[in-house]
């Protein structure tokens, strides 16, 4: 029992409540962390809408079976949230084997997300839209589109190109930071899976699963907003 409850706490209930509240507080900091980027996004979308609309169409254009990779990624993450929620339910009911399977499924889905993202990044690199100096060379088709857009919106072509590049900065940075958070999530859930195989989690000691589950759901939440903001600028 003494191993279950740390010495600064009076009982298991206090410990669990403190842990959960601590995770929610941490998630609040993460909302503001991503929020800084979202603020910058909001400002530039307001100022540079034509260029950003154009760029967003390009992002959305990378498709598997006619559906954009962004939509696939959203579906993958929503499914992983389901497996996490079912996993938390399983541990509270003492269903250890089911918990293991659900955690493994979550991991597979998380890795699938990262692989799709990697494919997107590679494709975008080849299109020449990665925004660092030396590498930013939009290919012929994109350049032609931009040229037409400049004429249509009556903005000088150099300016439009700069505004277009700025979209890509935000795209890579926002999805990149999100991907780092996904990696951390994959790491945490690998740990959870190993501990589950050792039978460490019981209905009494289920808090770590629930608390890390909150983190995973949060990363899913961020993506729920990133998808329309980056892929669906219309």
């Amino acid at each position: 029992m003494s191993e279950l409850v740390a010495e600064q706490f009076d009982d298991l209930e206090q410990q669990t409540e403190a842990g959960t509240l601590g995770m929610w507080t941490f998630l609040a900091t993460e909302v503001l962390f991503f929020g800084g980027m979202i603020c910058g996004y909001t400002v530039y979308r307001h100022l540079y809408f034509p260029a950003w609309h154009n760029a967003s169409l390009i992002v959305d254009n990378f498709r598997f079976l006619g559906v954009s990779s962004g939509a696939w990624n959203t579906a993958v993450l929503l499914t992983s949230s389901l497996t996490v929620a079912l996993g938390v339910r399983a541990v509270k009911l003492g269903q250890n084997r089911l918990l293991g399977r659900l955690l493994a499924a979550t991991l597979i889905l998380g890795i699938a997300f990262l692989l799709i993202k990697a494919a997107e990044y590679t494709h975008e690199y080849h299109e020449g839209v990665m925004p660092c100096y030396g590498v930013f060379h939009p290919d012929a088709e994109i350049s032609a589109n931009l040229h037409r857009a400049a004429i249509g919106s009556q903005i000088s072509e150099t300016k439009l190109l700069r505004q277009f590049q700025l979209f890509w900065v935000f795209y890579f940075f926002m999805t990149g930071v999100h991907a780092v958070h996904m990696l951390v999530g994959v790491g945490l859930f690998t740990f959870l899976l190993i501990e589950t195989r050792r039978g460490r989690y019981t209905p009494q000691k289920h808090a770590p699963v629930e608390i890390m589950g909150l983190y995973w759901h949060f990363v899913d939440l961020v993506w729920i907003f990133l998808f329309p903001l980056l892929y669906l600028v219309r």
Partner: protein
Amino acid sequence: MASIPYIPEYGVRETYLNAKHSIASWLLTRDHKRIAVLYMISITLFFAVGGSAAVIMRLQLLTPHSTLVEAETYNKLFTLHGIVMVFFFLVPSIPTTLGNFLLPLMIGARDLAFPRLNLASWYLFIFGGSLTLTALILGGVDTGWTFYTPYSSTFSNTNVVVAICGIFIAGFSSIFTGLNFIVTVHKMRCPGMTWFRLPMFIWTIYATSIIFVLATPVLAITLTLVALERILGVGIFDPALGGDPILFQHLFWFYSHPAVYIMILPGMGVVSELVPAFSRKQLFGYSFVAMATLAIAILGFLVWAHHMFVAGISIYGGMVFSALSFLVAIPSGVKVFNWTATLYKGSISLETPMLYALGFIGLFTIGGLTGLFLATLGIDMHVHDTYFVIAHFHYIMVGGAVMAYMGGLHFWWPKITGKLYPEGWGRIAAVILFVGFNLTFFPQFILGYLGMPRRYYAYAPEFQVYNVMSTAGATILAVGYLLPMCYLIWSLFRGKDAGPNPFKAAGLEWQTTSPPPPHNFDKTPTAGEPYNYHEMDFSDV
């Protein structure tokens, strides 16, 4: 009092200081009291570094065109001074030292909610601080602590990225500390300790923690964007590449304005403990002070663009932020009135901590009122980026926050170390500090009003007399800091042993030994009404 364990080989009772002696027992401690001491030593070192830069700057400014340092070096000096003093001294100071030490004691808990996270916070602080200090000293950074773009992101040739990395890491130290404090106050109060029985210091630490948690992440991401811009050559804030430099300022000040409330709220909390203790009287208007504390924390998030009135924001935006800035002054005023009302008809004694508290009330009021001048658009047009602003924030940061820290350090020194500091020297140092401070910074109000710009290594000859006054004051101020450094350390070896409650103050921390045992209380206490001075017996004082 409950029985205290006796360790035969030490011959004294077990306290958090003598429980274990190895270096590992300090560097791997989970005891919030030891972590507080680790922080205390760390921030004192940072203060010395930041203060040294100020000394050199004040020497440079003795004459209008001094050649003590070059212009480039001067830029690096004020950047170092700002970064070190803001991020590595003021922001952590009271929360990580007095806050860490006292929070569990004041609420009757055995430790914080997450002791290992607390230790991790200290390591993050040390690592981030060392990284930034290295960047600042080896080569330097010349952007100012505000890192305005596009200078910091494109044009500066100095160690901006490394400095930013250190600040980013230290930012997470703050975030985790704030998280720890919030969860502890919500979940670990002892029986009977309702919210409105908490010492006011806890209210302010709690409000500060809210700011830590909600503001610091925005700074983290903003500085990361600047670093990214430098490394990748992209244009988030660079107008030549389509970016908006004012966006940087919006994001930067969204953190940095609430940050100044991080720096002052704990100081207000300390004063709210000192004034009742040395007036032998209940804190007047407790619930108003508590609500004012929360109001400052929340309203403080709504005023950031008053740092940007002349930067190029719209005039309508300026009006909105100016009005909100007037609003945030009100709860601060409420607190000053309540402290004054606490003093009224109190049985006042002028021990060292009380001298610092009284100094705080006066100097914070001047600093705060001059803040209202700056919030007025018409005045700000003229005094923005002059010494008026510098005087304003030093009145609050030094006249306010640092004096509160000194007052709290003295008041709780017996509790932390078990030793009494020499009261005579304490009073002398407090007065020297007060005189030195005013001589240093009051002339700067005049300088700013007359038009002397800030961050300049030279100035027009007509400003010299005030600059000389300011430098002279700085010398006296330095003595005011060195004296406590000396006698406080002396007291560790030769000071008289303090009993559990040398000042006869109210509060659960005074119900345990000085220094406290590792687990704070032998028996979990039950809370009563706070500041119950009217119930205490002072007949033997």
